[in-house]
């Protein structure tokens, strides 16, 4: 207590405590509250990270004299650097680095805590043993010959290596193991609780406006001019011969009707969705799943291109960047205001647990979401995706989506499914339930065609890939907007 009081009186400690409080508040705001503007968060995270760096640097000079203070300060710096790294990577759109920071930071944080636990246990054990050595009386030992350990009373203190449950054989080793296991279990438990705590509801609002789900008109008038061919027939009059196909001269007059159509759903100003909000935007959300490379073509230069193209082709407001959520994070979305479309790509395993599958089932069935699968590069992923869908929707069989289905015709007419490479065949598959497509599977790496360089495919193909992307995003958002409106009218969650 005295140590604590004396610490509290120290100015450096007071400054540190204030900084920690500010940092914690900023962290909570960034993750859950969303009250502070971005500029304030930049300032807080930036300045506190800078200050911590400066403190650590300053302390490192007198490291030999105050090793514990230096390492304590360094350890406190780890979560600050970790969160700042994640925050600034996210802000800069470096989604891959964000993921590395998030996972790497957690691992470093775990190891740091473990080191401190081991150190603290060791210190305490040594202290207890030193006290015991001081109280050692040779006379007593000689008279009793041999004193049995813990005979008089059982020691329960886990910090004491003589605790009865550590046994007679290598108690220090057992104590270390106990420390390690206890710490790991506690750490996992806290992580699990915090991941549940992420249940603070997130919202996905559609952009306000209105529009129609109409096909962009493109009319090609074909005019056939058949060249007359006169041949001499020895048995009859001059005859008009049936022209060969090569003799038919086609004149193609492309007449494209550039009629301005607001793309979206319902009545409202500008392109958007009835029931949307002024802050609402169309986003591009992908599933961060364990087991594979979920982050193929993620962020700037990847799926961000698709989002920008969507804005260009539909005139709707779009999010500043694309996002990735784990299944647990997806669960935190509101029952109605949740992302209408969830993109899943990769080329390796999709390792989803039963809980994740339940979340995805809930996402499709209760939250009216739609899954957009994209084979990022292997037949294996094709099988993985199909079996994942079999787990999510066991009663729905995948079918080949017709080329004249609204998802292939509105707003853009997609005559044939364009692909980069036919990793999972050449046909788009769909899962149809409750009067809508609940999942669309593209077999040929459409995400690669959206990315910078367009995977080397011709302009026709990548332009069609963008159009197909627009169709699918538009379909999912319109279906969701309709459902939101119905929910609202029936006095649903909203």
């Amino acid at each position, binding site marked *: 207590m005295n140590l604590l009081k004396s610490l509290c009186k120290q100015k450096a400690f007071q400054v540190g405590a204030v900084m920690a409080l500010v940092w914690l508040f900023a962290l909570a705001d960034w993750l859950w509250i969303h009250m502070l503007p971005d500029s304030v968060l930049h300032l807080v995270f930036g300045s506190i990270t800078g200050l911590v760096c400066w403190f650590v640097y300053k302390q490192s000079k007198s490291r030999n004299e105050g090793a514990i203070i230096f390492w304590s300060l360094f350890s406190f710096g780890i979560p600050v650097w970790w969160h700042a790294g994640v925050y600034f990577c996210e802000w800069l759109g470096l989604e891959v680095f964000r993921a590395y920071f998030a996972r790497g930071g957690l691992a470093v944080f775990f190891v740091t805590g473990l080191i401190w636990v081991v150190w603290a246990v060791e210190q305490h054990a040594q202290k207890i043993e030193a006290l015991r050595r001081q109280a050692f009386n040779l006379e007593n030992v000689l008279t009793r010959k041999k004193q049995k350990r813990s005979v008089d009373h059982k020691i329960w203190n886990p910090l004491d290596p003589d605790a009865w449950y550590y046994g007679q054989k290598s108690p220090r080793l057992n104590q270390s193991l106990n420390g390690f296991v206890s710490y790991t279990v506690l750490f996992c438990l806290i992580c699990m609780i915090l991941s549940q705590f992420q249940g603070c509801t997130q919202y996905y609002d559609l952009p306000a406006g209105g529009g129609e789900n109409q096909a962009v008109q493109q009319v090609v008038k074909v005019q056939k001019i058949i060249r007359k061919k006169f041949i001499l027939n020895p048995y009859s009059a001059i005859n008009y011969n049936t022209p060969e196909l090569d003799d038919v001269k086609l004149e193609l007059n492309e007449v494209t009707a550039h009629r301005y159509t607001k793309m979206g759903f319902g009545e409202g100003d500008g392109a958007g969705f009835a029931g949307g909000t002024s802050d609402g935007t169309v986003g591009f959300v992908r599933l961060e799943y364990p087991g594979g490379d979920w982050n193929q073509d993620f962020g700037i230069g990847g799926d961000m291109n698709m989002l920008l193209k969507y804005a260009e082709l539909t005139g709707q407001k779009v999010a500043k960047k694309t996002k990735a959520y784990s299944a647990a994070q997806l669960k935190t979305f509101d029952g109605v205001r949740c992302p209408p479309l969830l993109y899943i790509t990769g*080329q390796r395993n999709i390792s989803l647990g039963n809980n994740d599958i339940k979340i995805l089932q809930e996402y499709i069935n209760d939250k009216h979401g739609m899954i957009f699968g994209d084979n990022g*590069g*292997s*037949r294996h992923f094709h099988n993985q995706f199909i079996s994942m869908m079999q787990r999510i929707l066991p*009663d*729905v*069989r*995948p*079918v*080949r*989506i*017709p*080329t*004249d*289905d609204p998802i292939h015709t509105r707003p853009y007419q997609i*005559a*044939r*499914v*364009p*692909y*980069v*490479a*036919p*990793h999972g065949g*050449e*046909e788009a598959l*769909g*899962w*149809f339930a409750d*009067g809508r*497509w609940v999942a669309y599977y593209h077999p*040929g790496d459409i995400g*690669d*065609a959206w990315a910078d*360089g*367009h*995977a*080397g*495919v*011709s302009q026709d*193909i*990548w332009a*069609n890939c963008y159009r197909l992307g627009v169709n699918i995003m538009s379909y999912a958002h319109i279906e969701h907007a309709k459902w939101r409106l119905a929910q609202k009218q029936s006095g649903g969650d909203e």
Partner: protein
Amino acid sequence: MKSLSTLMLMTLSWLSLASPALAQTKIGEMSLDRWAKMREVERYQLNIAEKYFKEKKYDVAMSEYEKYLSLYEQSDAASFVQLKWSLCLNNLRKQNTAIKEGFQSVIDYWPDSPDAAKASYLIGKTFVDIGRVSYGKKAYQETIADFPDDAVAVYSLSGLAEIAKQEKDETSLVKIWKRLAFDIERTKLTGGTCATAANSLASYYFGKGAFPDALDSLKTNYKDEQLAYYVYAYVRSPLGTLVGNEDTATVGLRLADQAVSFLKQNLETDLSTDELKAKAQTQWNQMIEVEKYSRRDDKVLAAYRSMLATFGNLDAIMGSLADYHVSQKRFDQARSIYRQFKDKVLGLSKVAQSYRAEANLNEAIKVYKQLAGVDAENAATWQGEEAAAYVEVKQYPQAIQIYRSLVASDALNSQKWLWALATTQRDANLLKEAIGTYRQCENFPENYRQMAGCHRALKEYKEALVLYGQIIGGSESMAPWAQLQVGYTFEQMQSTEMAIKAFQLCCKKYPKASYASTAHAHLQNKYKISVTLGGATDE
């Protein structure tokens, strides 16, 4: 689910009222009567369209059908042509248009034509094909209600059964199967559908352990000997499942008893001719097979004893019994039976095989040596088996020695022994020798493929590249694989630029091959290089 059951009942009652005079032609065909009624010009135009349809040139066929409709709208075949036009759309995967503008038009414009019934059924089927199961169900029910006398009503019922199966609506499914199996008169067009339903129903009943019901279902399809065979064919799998589960084992065993007793009743007792004897043996084997699925060892052995008592100690029966002992890991018992074979060579070869199954190489070798002496005519074969036994336990030098001697002595099968020798040398890591032996083999490109693999393992990449080049030039089917391997080989040579070029070439030359997809993904992942494979389905 309840509503579905009600609807099913309604549709079933419709069918029960229907007269058995079922339809006349297959879905995509028109009756000869109607062909006969057509004018020559109409027939000519329709034949052209049908030709393209058969050639799967659906877009061309569509325009020919359209031409027919615009020229001969009043023709008797117009409804059929409209139906075929819709089928073209279906095949071009424009199913929504096919339903709305095709099949529905047949019903609207020619409601009394035989094609209206087909169109009605096809609407349901197409809906199901594009995932609109609820619409499909409704359309099937309408078809059954509107055309109860037509074969399409039966097809629709079968379609409803598929949906019920998908929706795991067991009650409706069984009702439909029962109706199809027992109540509908079978014609040339509907017989297959009804028979399939009866078989499915039998499997279902066997799975529930209800032998008499299953038998009744099968009786609608088969009689006498055929019935016994199909009992044997359909009972085994459900029996295995039932017996394998602790909770249902009792039901399974009861089912086994009933099935065996039925098969026993149908055993051929007249053994006067060889043909009848062979038939009876087959029936006995089927009965024993069912016993095996019930996993009752004592009953299986008892059945074999009875069979041996009936037919005498025939090698085939004793072999089957011994094989059963092997499957139960009773090798000694099995061998004692094999040794009693009248055909000593066959018996000994089986003994050797059983030693190999037990991984007892020494005894197996002894038997093979004995076989080579007893059956001198086929000595090479037994020596080959001996070598294969050595290979199994990775005693390669002995195997190689035998194969070498076989190559020299058995000129007729030298290719077979060369291949075995080369493979053994490769497995023994004698790669240089393996390459030499593979070179003597004549099964291009497989030998070149193996040689290239050996060269790569020896880090002789240039030689491997030459061989891959020869595969590319000489084997069309293996060329994409070989081109991909060229890329990997260059990678092993640390020649990144050449590797990239090889992978790119694989994508460029063989864009439809699965190896191109692998090359594409490899280029993307390893080198972050994009290469075009892109296309669309109509390319």
